[in-house]
Protein backbone atom coordinates (compact mmCIF):
# COMPACT_ATOMS: atom_id res chain seq x y z
CA UNK A 1 0.00 0.00 0.00
CA UNK A 2 1.11 3.53 -0.65
CA UNK A 3 1.11 4.38 3.07
CA UNK A 4 4.08 2.06 3.52
CA UNK A 5 6.25 4.40 1.55
CA UNK A 6 9.13 5.13 3.89
CA UNK A 7 10.41 8.01 1.82
CA UNK A 8 7.40 10.13 2.75
CA UNK A 9 7.47 8.94 6.34
CA UNK A 10 10.91 10.47 6.76
CA UNK A 11 9.95 13.90 5.51
CA UNK A 12 9.16 16.64 7.97
CA UNK A 13 6.02 18.74 7.93
CA UNK A 14 7.63 21.59 6.01
CA UNK A 15 8.88 19.27 3.27
CA UNK A 16 5.53 17.51 3.01
CA UNK A 17 3.71 20.82 2.69
CA UNK A 18 6.06 21.98 -0.04
CA UNK A 19 5.69 18.75 -2.02
CA UNK A 20 1.94 18.64 -1.52
CA UNK A 21 1.66 22.20 -2.81
CA UNK A 22 3.41 21.07 -5.98
CA UNK A 23 0.68 18.47 -6.49
CA UNK A 24 2.32 15.45 -4.86
CA UNK A 25 -0.71 13.54 -3.58
CA UNK A 26 1.34 11.05 -1.60
CA UNK A 27 2.97 13.88 0.30
CA UNK A 28 -0.47 15.34 0.89
CA UNK A 29 -1.77 12.00 2.12
CA UNK A 30 1.15 11.61 4.52
CA UNK A 31 0.65 15.16 5.76
CA UNK A 32 -3.03 14.48 6.42
CA UNK A 33 -2.20 11.21 8.12
CA UNK A 34 0.24 12.99 10.43
CA UNK A 35 -2.24 15.71 11.30
CA UNK A 36 -5.51 13.85 11.67
CA UNK A 37 -5.07 12.80 15.30
CA UNK A 38 -4.24 16.35 16.14
CA UNK A 39 -7.29 17.71 14.36
CA UNK A 40 -9.46 15.03 15.91
CA UNK A 41 -8.21 15.86 19.42
CA UNK A 42 -8.76 19.57 18.86
CA UNK A 43 -12.39 19.06 17.90
CA UNK A 44 -12.82 16.60 20.76
CA UNK A 45 -12.06 19.42 23.19
CA UNK A 46 -13.94 22.15 21.34
CA UNK A 47 -17.21 20.41 20.51
CA UNK A 48 -19.67 19.33 23.18
CA UNK A 49 -21.23 16.92 20.72
CA UNK A 50 -19.04 13.86 20.55
CA UNK A 51 -20.90 12.52 17.52
CA UNK A 52 -19.86 15.53 15.44
CA UNK A 53 -16.15 15.19 16.03
CA UNK A 54 -15.53 12.62 13.27
CA UNK A 55 -17.42 14.68 10.70
CA UNK A 56 -15.66 17.86 11.70
CA UNK A 57 -12.28 16.15 11.52
CA UNK A 58 -12.90 14.93 7.98
CA UNK A 59 -14.33 18.27 6.94
CA UNK A 60 -11.19 20.03 8.18
CA UNK A 61 -8.93 17.52 6.43
CA UNK A 62 -10.80 18.01 3.18
CA UNK A 63 -10.47 21.79 3.51
CA UNK A 64 -6.74 21.42 4.14
CA UNK A 65 -6.37 19.18 1.09
CA UNK A 66 -8.34 21.50 -1.16
CA UNK A 67 -6.84 24.79 -0.04
CA UNK A 68 -3.24 23.93 0.69
CA UNK A 69 -2.12 25.52 -2.56
CA UNK A 70 -3.34 28.88 -1.20
CA UNK A 71 -1.00 28.75 1.79
CA UNK A 72 1.79 31.20 1.06
CA UNK A 73 4.36 30.20 3.67
CA UNK A 74 4.80 26.45 4.32
CA UNK A 75 6.24 27.23 7.75
CA UNK A 76 2.93 28.81 8.75
CA UNK A 77 1.12 25.54 8.09
CA UNK A 78 0.28 24.81 11.71
CA UNK A 79 -1.22 28.21 12.31
CA UNK A 80 -3.09 28.04 9.01
CA UNK A 81 -4.44 24.59 9.79
CA UNK A 82 -5.71 25.80 13.14
CA UNK A 83 -7.42 28.72 11.47
CA UNK A 84 -9.37 26.22 9.37
CA UNK A 85 -10.21 24.16 12.46
CA UNK A 86 -11.27 27.21 14.45
CA UNK A 87 -13.40 28.61 11.62
CA UNK A 88 -15.18 25.28 11.22
CA UNK A 89 -15.87 25.35 14.92
CA UNK A 90 -17.22 28.91 14.69
CA UNK A 91 -19.56 27.73 11.92
CA UNK A 92 -20.57 24.91 14.20
CA UNK A 93 -21.41 27.34 17.00
CA UNK A 94 -23.56 29.37 14.65
CA UNK A 95 -25.50 26.33 13.50
CA UNK A 96 -27.90 25.08 16.13
CA UNK A 97 -27.82 21.51 15.04
CA UNK A 98 -25.94 19.69 12.34
CA UNK A 99 -27.55 18.25 9.29
CA UNK A 100 -26.69 14.59 9.31
CA UNK A 101 -25.73 14.57 5.63
CA UNK A 102 -23.21 17.41 5.58
CA UNK A 103 -20.33 15.22 4.56
CA UNK A 104 -19.84 11.54 4.84
CA UNK A 105 -16.60 10.15 3.60
CA UNK A 106 -17.50 6.94 5.41
CA UNK A 107 -20.04 6.27 2.69
CA UNK A 108 -18.88 4.38 -0.36
CA UNK A 109 -20.45 6.79 -2.83
CA UNK A 110 -17.19 7.97 -4.34
CA UNK A 111 -14.80 6.95 -7.06
CA UNK A 112 -12.62 4.89 -4.74
CA UNK A 113 -15.53 2.72 -3.68
CA UNK A 114 -13.82 -0.59 -4.39
CA UNK A 115 -11.46 -0.61 -1.45
CA UNK A 116 -12.18 0.51 2.06
CA UNK A 117 -11.77 4.27 2.26
CA UNK A 118 -11.43 4.53 5.99
CA UNK A 119 -8.52 2.48 7.16
CA UNK A 120 -7.99 1.69 10.78
CA UNK A 121 -4.99 2.81 12.73
CA UNK A 122 -3.22 0.26 14.91
CA UNK A 123 -3.83 0.71 18.61
CA UNK A 124 -1.18 2.74 20.34
CA UNK A 125 -1.36 1.63 23.92
CA UNK A 126 0.53 3.26 26.73
CA UNK A 127 3.97 1.79 27.13
CA UNK A 128 4.64 0.46 30.64
CA UNK A 129 7.09 3.19 31.61
CA UNK A 130 5.09 5.97 29.98
CA UNK A 131 3.12 8.38 32.10
CA UNK A 132 -0.52 7.73 31.48
CA UNK A 133 -3.81 8.96 32.82
CA UNK A 134 -6.99 7.02 33.15
CA UNK A 135 -9.76 7.09 30.60
CA UNK A 136 -12.05 8.57 33.25
CA UNK A 137 -9.74 11.49 33.94
CA UNK A 138 -9.31 12.16 30.23
CA UNK A 139 -13.08 12.29 29.85
CA UNK A 140 -13.46 14.59 32.83
CA UNK A 141 -10.85 16.96 31.45
CA UNK A 142 -12.50 16.87 28.03
CA UNK A 143 -15.88 17.67 29.57
CA UNK A 144 -14.42 20.51 31.65
CA UNK A 145 -12.75 22.10 28.64
CA UNK A 146 -15.61 21.69 26.19
CA UNK A 147 -17.96 23.26 28.73
CA UNK A 148 -15.93 26.46 28.91
CA UNK A 149 -17.34 29.47 27.03
CA UNK A 150 -16.37 29.35 23.32
CA UNK A 151 -13.57 31.91 23.27
CA UNK A 152 -11.98 30.49 26.41
CA UNK A 153 -11.82 26.95 25.16
CA UNK A 154 -10.50 28.01 21.78
CA UNK A 155 -7.72 29.98 23.45
CA UNK A 156 -6.71 27.22 25.87
CA UNK A 157 -6.89 24.46 23.24
CA UNK A 158 -4.85 26.41 20.69
CA UNK A 159 -2.29 27.14 23.38
CA UNK A 160 -2.01 23.86 25.28
CA UNK A 161 -2.88 21.34 22.59
CA UNK A 162 -1.53 23.10 19.53
CA UNK A 163 1.28 25.04 21.18
CA UNK A 164 0.53 28.23 19.27
CA UNK A 165 1.92 31.57 20.43
CA UNK A 166 -0.33 34.31 21.81
CA UNK A 167 0.27 36.26 18.63
CA UNK A 168 -0.90 33.38 16.43
CA UNK A 169 -3.95 32.81 18.62
CA UNK A 170 -4.78 36.52 18.50
CA UNK A 171 -4.58 36.39 14.71
CA UNK A 172 -6.80 33.30 14.44
CA UNK A 173 -9.42 34.56 16.88
CA UNK A 174 -9.24 38.16 15.64
CA UNK A 175 -8.53 39.55 19.09
CA UNK A 176 -5.70 41.39 20.82
CA UNK A 177 -2.75 39.66 22.48
CA UNK A 178 -3.86 41.10 25.83
CA UNK A 179 -7.28 39.50 25.40
CA UNK A 180 -5.69 36.17 24.53
CA UNK A 181 -3.45 36.38 27.58
CA UNK A 182 -6.36 37.00 29.91
CA UNK A 183 -8.57 34.35 28.30
CA UNK A 184 -5.89 31.69 28.69
CA UNK A 185 -5.20 32.71 32.25
CA UNK A 186 -8.89 32.63 33.19
CA UNK A 187 -9.47 29.37 31.38
CA UNK A 188 -6.62 27.83 33.36
CA UNK A 189 -8.00 29.08 36.67
CA UNK A 190 -11.45 27.74 35.86
CA UNK A 191 -10.08 24.37 34.82
CA UNK A 192 -7.74 24.11 37.79
CA UNK A 193 -10.69 24.86 40.00
CA UNK A 194 -12.88 22.28 38.35
CA UNK A 195 -10.20 19.62 38.37
CA UNK A 196 -8.93 20.31 41.86
CA UNK A 197 -10.17 17.06 43.29
CA UNK A 198 -8.67 14.97 40.47
CA UNK A 199 -5.17 16.32 40.03
Amino acid at each position, binding site marked *: *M*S*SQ*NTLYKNLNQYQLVELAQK*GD*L*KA*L*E*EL*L*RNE*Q*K*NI*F*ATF*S*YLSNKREDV*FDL*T*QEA*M*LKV*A*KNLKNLKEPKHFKSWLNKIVTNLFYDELRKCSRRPDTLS*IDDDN*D*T*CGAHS*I*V*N*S*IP*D*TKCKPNE*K*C*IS*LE*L*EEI*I*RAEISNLPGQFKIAIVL*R*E*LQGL*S*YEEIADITKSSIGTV*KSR*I*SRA*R*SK*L*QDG*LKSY*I
Partner: protein
Amino acid sequence: MENLSCGQVIALLSFYIDEKLNSNLMKNIEYHLNTCSFCRNKYMQLRKIYDNYADIKSRIEEDNDEYIVDDAIYRNQQYEFFKENLSAYIDNELKTEDNLRVKKAAIINPIARTELKNMLLFQQTLHMAFQKTKNNLKKDFSGGIICKIRDSLPKFNVNSDLSAWDKLINMLSNFLKSRGIFSNGK
Protein backbone atom coordinates in the same frame (compact mmCIF):
# COMPACT_ATOMS: atom_id res chain seq x y z
CA MET B 1 31.54 27.67 84.05
CA GLU B 2 33.40 27.97 80.78
CA ASN B 3 33.16 31.24 78.94
CA LEU B 4 31.95 30.82 75.38
CA SER B 5 32.64 33.42 72.72
CA CYS B 6 29.76 34.98 70.75
CA GLY B 7 30.98 33.22 67.63
CA GLN B 8 30.89 29.85 69.34
CA VAL B 9 27.39 30.47 70.71
CA ILE B 10 26.00 31.54 67.36
CA ALA B 11 27.54 28.52 65.67
CA LEU B 12 25.77 26.29 68.20
CA LEU B 13 22.40 28.09 68.23
CA SER B 14 20.53 25.71 65.93
CA PHE B 15 21.71 22.72 67.98
CA TYR B 16 20.71 24.57 71.12
CA ILE B 17 17.16 25.13 69.82
CA ASP B 18 16.90 21.48 68.85
CA GLU B 19 18.33 20.57 72.30
CA LYS B 20 20.95 18.42 70.68
CA LEU B 21 23.82 19.42 73.02
CA ASN B 22 25.01 17.94 76.29
CA SER B 23 23.56 19.47 79.42
CA ASN B 24 26.77 21.24 80.32
CA LEU B 25 26.91 23.03 76.97
CA MET B 26 23.19 23.78 77.11
CA LYS B 27 23.67 25.54 80.44
CA ASN B 28 26.69 27.46 79.19
CA ILE B 29 24.77 28.78 76.19
CA GLU B 30 21.76 29.63 78.29
CA TYR B 31 24.02 31.61 80.58
CA HIS B 32 25.57 33.45 77.65
CA LEU B 33 22.19 34.30 76.15
CA ASN B 34 21.08 35.78 79.48
CA THR B 35 24.05 38.08 79.56
CA CYS B 36 24.68 38.93 75.89
CA SER B 37 21.99 40.94 74.08
CA PHE B 38 23.65 40.50 70.69
CA CYS B 39 23.45 36.71 70.84
CA ARG B 40 20.01 36.85 72.44
CA ASN B 41 18.72 38.80 69.43
CA LYS B 42 20.19 36.26 67.05
CA TYR B 43 18.63 33.51 69.12
CA MET B 44 15.16 35.13 69.03
CA GLN B 45 15.32 35.55 65.24
CA LEU B 46 16.33 31.97 64.69
CA ARG B 47 13.73 30.73 67.15
CA LYS B 48 11.02 32.57 65.20
CA ILE B 49 12.08 31.00 61.91
CA TYR B 50 12.15 27.58 63.49
CA ASP B 51 8.70 28.01 65.01
CA ASN B 52 7.33 29.19 61.69
CA TYR B 53 8.85 26.23 59.96
CA ALA B 54 7.43 23.82 62.53
CA ASP B 55 4.05 25.47 62.06
CA ILE B 56 4.12 25.04 58.27
CA LYS B 57 5.33 21.49 58.65
CA SER B 58 2.49 20.58 61.01
CA ARG B 59 -0.01 22.17 58.61
CA ILE B 60 1.36 20.14 55.75
CA GLU B 61 0.81 17.03 57.80
CA GLU B 62 -2.64 18.19 58.90
CA ASP B 63 -3.90 19.13 55.46
CA ASN B 64 -2.35 16.21 53.70
CA ASP B 65 0.03 18.23 51.55
CA GLU B 66 -2.56 20.79 50.53
CA TYR B 67 -1.44 23.43 52.94
CA ILE B 68 -2.21 27.07 52.73
CA VAL B 69 0.07 29.38 54.59
CA ASP B 70 -2.26 32.17 55.53
CA ASP B 71 0.51 34.58 56.30
CA ALA B 72 -0.59 37.97 55.13
CA ILE B 73 3.03 38.90 54.51
CA TYR B 74 3.12 36.61 51.49
CA ARG B 75 -0.01 38.04 49.93
CA ASN B 76 1.72 41.21 48.93
CA GLN B 77 2.06 43.23 45.76
CA GLN B 78 4.72 40.90 44.43
CA TYR B 79 2.35 37.98 44.88
CA GLU B 80 -0.47 39.82 43.10
CA PHE B 81 1.84 40.42 40.17
CA PHE B 82 2.84 36.77 40.24
CA LYS B 83 -0.76 35.58 40.17
CA GLU B 84 -1.66 37.88 37.33
CA ASN B 85 1.23 36.71 35.18
CA LEU B 86 1.75 33.08 36.12
CA SER B 87 -0.22 31.80 33.13
CA ALA B 88 1.75 33.90 30.63
CA TYR B 89 4.93 33.00 32.49
CA ILE B 90 4.57 29.28 31.86
CA ASP B 91 3.80 30.10 28.22
CA ASN B 92 7.01 32.10 28.01
CA GLU B 93 5.03 35.10 26.80
CA LEU B 94 6.33 37.73 29.23
CA LYS B 95 8.84 40.50 28.68
CA THR B 96 12.24 39.69 30.20
CA GLU B 97 11.81 41.96 33.22
CA ASP B 98 8.33 40.63 34.02
CA ASN B 99 9.59 37.12 33.53
CA LEU B 100 12.27 37.79 36.15
CA ARG B 101 9.73 39.29 38.57
CA VAL B 102 7.59 36.16 38.39
CA LYS B 103 10.59 33.89 38.77
CA LYS B 104 11.81 35.89 41.76
CA ALA B 105 8.41 35.66 43.44
CA ALA B 106 8.41 31.91 42.98
CA ILE B 107 11.79 31.66 44.65
CA ILE B 108 11.04 33.95 47.59
CA ASN B 109 7.35 33.30 48.22
CA PRO B 110 6.31 29.80 49.32
CA ILE B 111 2.67 30.32 48.28
CA ALA B 112 3.75 31.41 44.84
CA ARG B 113 6.06 28.45 44.62
CA THR B 114 3.25 26.05 45.45
CA GLU B 115 1.02 27.66 42.87
CA LEU B 116 3.68 27.40 40.19
CA LYS B 117 4.17 23.75 41.05
CA ASN B 118 0.41 23.10 40.90
CA MET B 119 0.15 24.93 37.60
CA LEU B 120 2.88 22.81 36.04
CA LEU B 121 1.30 19.65 37.38
CA PHE B 122 -2.03 20.74 35.94
CA GLN B 123 -0.42 21.45 32.58
CA GLN B 124 1.30 18.08 32.56
CA THR B 125 -2.03 16.37 33.23
CA LEU B 126 -3.68 18.30 30.38
CA HIS B 127 -0.97 17.21 28.00
CA MET B 128 -1.38 13.60 29.02
CA ALA B 129 -5.12 13.89 28.44
CA PHE B 130 -4.50 15.39 24.98
CA GLN B 131 -2.16 12.57 24.12
CA LYS B 132 -4.76 10.04 25.14
CA THR B 133 -7.45 11.78 23.11
CA LYS B 134 -5.25 11.82 20.03
CA ASN B 135 -4.86 8.09 20.30
CA ASN B 136 -8.62 7.67 20.51
CA LEU B 137 -8.78 8.16 16.75
CA LYS B 138 -8.64 4.64 15.41
CA LYS B 139 -9.54 5.50 11.83
CA ASP B 140 -7.29 6.72 9.08
CA PHE B 141 -9.16 9.22 6.93
CA SER B 142 -6.22 10.39 4.83
CA GLY B 143 -6.64 7.89 2.00
CA GLY B 144 -10.33 8.70 1.69
CA ILE B 145 -9.66 12.42 1.54
CA ILE B 146 -7.13 11.91 -1.22
CA CYS B 147 -9.68 9.87 -3.15
CA LYS B 148 -12.21 12.67 -2.76
CA ILE B 149 -9.95 15.36 -4.15
CA ARG B 150 -8.21 13.28 -6.81
CA ASP B 151 -11.22 13.78 -9.07
CA SER B 152 -10.84 17.53 -8.96
CA LEU B 153 -7.24 17.37 -10.09
CA PRO B 154 -7.17 16.99 -13.88
CA LYS B 155 -3.47 16.19 -14.19
CA PHE B 156 -3.86 12.95 -12.29
CA ASN B 157 -5.30 9.91 -13.97
CA VAL B 158 -7.89 8.43 -11.65
CA ASN B 159 -7.52 4.98 -13.14
CA SER B 160 -3.78 4.65 -12.79
CA ASP B 161 -2.61 2.52 -9.94
CA LEU B 162 -0.25 4.79 -8.09
CA SER B 163 1.53 2.06 -6.16
CA ALA B 164 2.24 0.14 -9.36
CA TRP B 165 3.45 3.38 -10.90
CA ASP B 166 5.77 3.88 -7.94
CA LYS B 167 7.16 0.38 -8.28
CA LEU B 168 7.93 1.06 -11.89
CA ILE B 169 9.69 4.33 -11.03
CA ASN B 170 11.63 2.62 -8.28
CA MET B 171 12.73 -0.12 -10.63
CA LEU B 172 13.77 2.47 -13.17
CA SER B 173 15.75 4.55 -10.71
CA ASN B 174 17.43 1.49 -9.25
CA PHE B 175 18.38 0.45 -12.73
CA LEU B 176 19.81 3.88 -13.45
CA LYS B 177 21.64 3.96 -10.12
CA SER B 178 23.18 0.57 -10.85
CA ARG B 179 24.51 2.11 -14.03
CA GLY B 180 25.97 5.01 -12.06
CA ILE B 181 23.42 7.46 -13.35
CA PHE B 182 21.62 9.21 -10.51
CA SER B 183 17.95 9.73 -10.86
CA ASN B 184 15.59 11.58 -8.54
CA GLY B 185 12.74 9.40 -9.66
CA LYS B 186 11.10 11.72 -12.17
